[in-house]
């Protein structure tokens, strides 16, 4: 009776039954956990095992890249989403089995580096599914990062390309659309407490048949978002871009044949992998590490640890993220590992090996390790709409361990660069515009992060987002025409907010925003780095400062500007320190703000940040310090106190002897105040995180993770990590206010009791004196 042996036939039958009766075709872990390219198909094996003509391959590659470039330009020119105008887009091509082969030369590689997941899902689940199928003229839509993607704001259109009845490759295009019907406008809601607050969560599904959008499905999607016109327009844009790319691919097939295309697409990614293995092998064997500490869940201040170790052994590289913070089941900042990998790739392709072809195949030879239920490897149910917090870190932190691995090489693939500013520093907005439109999206300032200092020169100011060197920060006039945002201060570099170093980071700029012409408008922001320095520096430089969100409320600045325009200077420090807007309520906050309505003329201020510094500040050429003064990047105080340069403030002539003396003295002071490392460790290191600190992640042992449960600290084995459930900050605030109220009430009662007693005593005394 207990004989449970199953024959192979029974097993086949059982598997078929389970496959046919799967209740929910959830994202497939087999697909999602594999970032490598798949094995060669039989046909690829046949074609690539023989000799191939490199000139032919090169010609096909050139034609395909030109087609992708054309596709990218089409999206940029026609796309309605703000992100499309600023370059947050990509057009790409995949092999028949779904591996990313090439992207448009100016596209965002991260967007494409995750589309192979939904394509592989479509191949696996929809090809043989009788109610779906994959046919010539079909197209699919997708945005849920759990099925592959960066975050839910990015919508992809995916189309198979058929040739003589056979599917030969896939083309896709992706736009950061923004609005997606989430609980807050703009598609990136920090207030999301579950994945059901994220708005549209599109697993890959067919929305195009016979090369046309299905209007019923388009209408359904429009009905789910705040900006239905945007949804329709950009679905059309993506469809027609895919159609144009398909047309170009068909022309290639016509001219060069199917075999040439198959060889070219596959050869391209195999060559990349071979080169990556060679590059890993030339690095020294060893391990380099970096830590970074985001200081917010975007709902409350909390110190999260992200840990990254890069280990090289021969031609193998492992990226180890174990020991990082646990996931938060009711906070928006979780990220799934597949999303994280795309942004790590971006970092490698932007800062480490920018000369390699932009394709996910680069990461094929690289293994990655995560703890389960880590915030960097969030489980399916975790909300992930503000995964940008870990993702922006992923774009920047690899440069530190990779530089420490590669500095010794006799040659360079690019300059050494300290981390770029790593926060999405921008206003996200939503509401009713002055033109009567309902919108929700984000400002292009997200693309203006300062670059880190380099080994031979300073970082560029507000150069690009860390996820794409080609993205732009947009035109203010265009924004003001479409939106009720008035930029009172824009693109003014934030003086003294600098990653100091031998070579300093490029600066970020101030954003001073207000609104007029509508009564229904609001802002939110989603950054960390208001308490703890966001980016680690390189080789003895300093990191960026921290950045607050500043507000002037309960006042209409436009009224005052009309009366007395000369008195107000559009400079955050001047506005806040001198409080020149009369009658305003001035305040500072962490740069994590859930959506709040902004009244006409109220002022919201934030900064894009500086990149980290490179090298010792005392090694900075005094002439460069003077240039920074001339350009108003730093103050005289900074030149003297940080860079130790002595000069005439009127002429900016450096007193070299006095500067040398001051710097020598500072070096002597360092020797005096520095402690031998072992003694320092004894004095500084504590067994556990300070009790007052809401700390998440490992401390001295990566297998032991700290977190909280019901507001109290807990310790967990990394292998048994549980999700964090955070209390509602408003409940906490109410609790704290109630407690304060109780204290005040008790004081009042005590006071009353004392008062009664003294009244009685007085009365008694009076009555005694009367009797006398």
């Amino acid at each position, binding site marked *: 009776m207990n004989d449970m042996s199953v024959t192979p036939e029974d097993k086949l039958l059982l598997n078929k039954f389970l496959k046919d009766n799967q209740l929910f075709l959830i994202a497939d872990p087999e697909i999602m956990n594999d970032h490598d390219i798949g094995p060669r198909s039989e046909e690829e094996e046949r074609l690539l095992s023989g000799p191939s003509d490199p000139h032919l391959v090169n010609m096909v590659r050139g034609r395909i890249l030109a087609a992708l470039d054309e596709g990218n330009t089409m999206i940029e020119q026609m796309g309605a989403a703000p992100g499309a105008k600023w370059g947050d887009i990509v057009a790409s091509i995949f092999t028949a089995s779904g591996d990313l082969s090439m992207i448009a030369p100016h596209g965002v590689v991260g967007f494409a580096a995750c589309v192979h997941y939904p394509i592989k899902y479509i191949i696996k689940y929809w090809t043989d599914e009788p109610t779906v199928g994959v046919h010539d003229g079909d197209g699919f839509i997708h945005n849920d990062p759990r099925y592959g993607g960066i975050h839910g704001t990015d919508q992809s259109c995916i189309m198979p390309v058929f040739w003589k009845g056979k599917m030969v490759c896939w083309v896709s295009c992706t736009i950061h659309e923004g609005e997606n019907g989430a609980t807050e406008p703009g598609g990136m809601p920090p207030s999301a407490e579950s994945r059901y607050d994220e708005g549209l969560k599109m697993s890959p599904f067919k929305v195009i048949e016979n090369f046309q959008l299905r209007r019923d499905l388009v209408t359904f999607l429009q009905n789910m978002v705040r900006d239905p016109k945007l949804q329709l327009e950009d679905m059309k844009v993506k469809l027609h871009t895919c159609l144009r790319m398909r047309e170009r691919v068909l022309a290639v097939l016509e001219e060069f044949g199917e075999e040439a295309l198959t060889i070219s697409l596959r050869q391209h990614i195999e060559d990349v992998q071979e080169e990556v293995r060679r590059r890993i092998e030339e690095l*020294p064997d060893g391990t380099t590490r970096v830590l970074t500490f985001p200081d917010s869940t975007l709902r409350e201040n909390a*110190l999260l640890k992200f840990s990254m170790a890069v280990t090289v052994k021969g031609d193998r590289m492992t990226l180890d993220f174990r020991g990082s913070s646990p996931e938060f089941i009711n906070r928006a900042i979780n990220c799934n590992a597949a999303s994280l990998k795309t942004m790590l790739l971006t970092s490698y392709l932007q800062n480490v090996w920018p000369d390699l072809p932009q394709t996910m195949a680069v990461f094929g030879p690289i293994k990655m390790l995560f703890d389960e239920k880590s915030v960097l490897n969030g489980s399916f149910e975790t909300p992930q709409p503000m995964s940008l917090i870990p993702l922006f870190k992923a774009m920047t932190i690899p440069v530190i361990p990779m530089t420490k691995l590669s500095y010794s090489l006799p040659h360079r693939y690019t300059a050494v660069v300290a981390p770029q500013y790593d926060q999405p520093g921008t206003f996200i907005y939503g509401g009713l515009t002055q033109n009567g439109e309902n919108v929700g999206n984000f400002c292009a300032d997200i693309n203006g992060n300062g670059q880190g200092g380099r080994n031979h020169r300073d970082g560029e100011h507000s150069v690009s987002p860390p996820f794409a060197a080609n993205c732009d920060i947009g035109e203010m006039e265009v924004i003001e025409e479409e939106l009720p945002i008035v930029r009172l201060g824009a693109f003014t570099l934030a003086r003294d907010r600098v990653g100091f170093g031998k070579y300093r980071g490029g600066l970020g700029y101030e954003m001073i925003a207000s609104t007029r012409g509508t009564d229904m408008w609001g802002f939110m922001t989603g950054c960390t780095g208001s308490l703890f320095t966001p980016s680690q520096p390189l080789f003895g430089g300093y990191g960026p400062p921290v950045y607050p969100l500043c507000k002037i409320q309960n006042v209409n600045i436009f009224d005052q500007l009309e009366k007395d325009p000369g008195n107000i200077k559009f400079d955050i420090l001047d506005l806040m320190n001198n409080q020149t807007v009369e009658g305003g309520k*001035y305040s500072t906050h962490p740069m994590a703000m859930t959506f709040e309505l902004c009244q006409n003329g109220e002022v919201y201020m934030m900064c894009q940040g500086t990149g980290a510094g490179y090298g010792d500040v005392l090694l900075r050429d005094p002439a460069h310090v003077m240039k920074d003064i001339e350009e108003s990047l730093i103050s005289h105080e900074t030149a003297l106190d940080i860079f130790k340069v002595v000069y005439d403030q009127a002429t900016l002539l450096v007193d070299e002897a006095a500067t040398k003396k001051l710097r020598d003295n500072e070096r002597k002071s360092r020797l005096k105040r520095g402690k031998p490392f072992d003694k320092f460790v004894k004095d500084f290191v504590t067994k556990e995180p300070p009790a007052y600190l809401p700390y998440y992640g490992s401390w001295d042992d990566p297998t032991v993770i700290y977190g909280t449960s019901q507001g109290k600290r807990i310790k967990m084995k990394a292998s048994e990590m549980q999700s964090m459930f955070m209390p509602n900050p408003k409940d906490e605030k109410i609790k704290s206010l109630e407690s304060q109220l109780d204290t005040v009430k008790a004081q009042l009662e005590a006071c009353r009791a004392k008062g009664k007693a003294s009244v009685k005593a007085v009365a008694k005394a009076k009555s005694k004196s009367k009797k006398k």
Partner: protein
Amino acid sequence: MKVLMTENLRINLDTEKWECRHCDKVLNSARDNYKRSLLAYDRDPREIHKPLLDPKKYTLTYSPDPTWCRLIEYYCPKCGTMMETEYLPPGHPPLRDMEFDIDAMKEQWKHREEVLKEPGGKDYPRSRKSVHAGQAMARMATGDKA
């Protein structure tokens, strides 16, 4: 054979020691954590990232919160050059950021010539007239004149 490892450090493969690139001070074993041979200082980050907003008026001032964030500076014990910096929570163990297999490195450098000055860091000239033009871009990359 000396191998340049960072802006400030090199490894002498013959003696297996870390060395300061600025003053040639011989530090500790290259198989050990180089930080153990340096001086370390726990700095209040507000001394470097000074409050730019009036601390009497505001709690957040562009300065890191010293109860959350400390700035650890590492100095060469001979010349006082700042070799590394790291931002850590108070009491967090300093990171061992570099750990190399010295035997493998020796093997690797048997086949390489010593590098005395780090490579890279070349800036290509920018043509203000036509930065997007293909031929101009190509000339920038190759260094050829028009």
